[in-house]
């Protein structure tokens, strides 16, 4: 049953990825793949925040945590599109953009995850502090 929930949540996450990617692609005309980068940064922040706050509040069942974290956010973000876009940039002779894309993805992705962790942990402490008083 858990596999079914992960699959359904994954389908919704992918749909959100496609929707946001299409919307960004409609206004962004440069070859630099900003859409995937933005999607991946948002997802990394959300997973960090959820893992360190939302999933620890005890209000969600383990099944919901797996479906949302692994299924939905996991499918919203993507690594394969990032890899292929980088190779396409290299093939187009845009090595500078390819290097920039890899560095931004590696650096900002980690920072987004950290920010999610940071704000999530803060929020959890705040909430637990209130419960104790």
């Amino acid at each position, binding site marked *: 049953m*858990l*596999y079914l929930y*992960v*699959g*359904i*949540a*994954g*389908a*919704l*996450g*992918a*749909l959100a*990825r*496609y929707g946001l990617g299409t919307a960004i692609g409609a206004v962004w005309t440069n070859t630099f793949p900003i859409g995937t980068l933005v999607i*991946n940064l948002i*997802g*990394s922040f*959300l*997973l*960090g925040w959820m*893992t360190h706050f939302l999933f620890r509040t005890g209000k969600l069942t383990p099944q919901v945590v*797996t479906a949302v974290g*692994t*299924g939905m*956010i*996991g*499918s*919203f*973000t*993507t*690594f*394969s*599109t*990032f*890899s*292929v876009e*980088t*190779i*396409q940039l*290299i*093939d187009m002779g845009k090595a500078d953009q390819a290097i920039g894309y*890899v560095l931004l*993805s*590696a650096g900002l*992705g*980690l920072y*987004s*995850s*950290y920010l999610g*962790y940071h704000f999530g942990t803060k929020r959890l402490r705040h909430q637990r502090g209130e419960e104790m008083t």
Partner: protein
Amino acid sequence: MTILLIMAGAFLGAIARFGVGQLMKAWSASAFPWATLFVNVSGSFGLGYLSSHTTYASLLLFLGVGFFGSLTTFSTLKLELMRFTSKDWFHFGMYLMATYLFGLIAAYIGWHL
């Protein structure tokens, strides 16, 4: 139709990624995120191959955006990397290098195969 194709592919991709994770958990007690590394590298190869070998829109939506897009993940990769920071810089470096290096090489091979 576009929406259905993406959702069907992503349904299978997310289940496959979760399944690999469960299998890996049952096989080894290693703290190294082999499952994520495996899906990200194999998915990069798959999408690379698909992208340069077909222009068939339905297949690109179902397998490309849906299946390979959801089989691979970026958010879990970053969460796992962050967990290594400050306590295990060796594995942090190994995991970061392995994912980006092998992921890009796999996409390159798939694309040019």
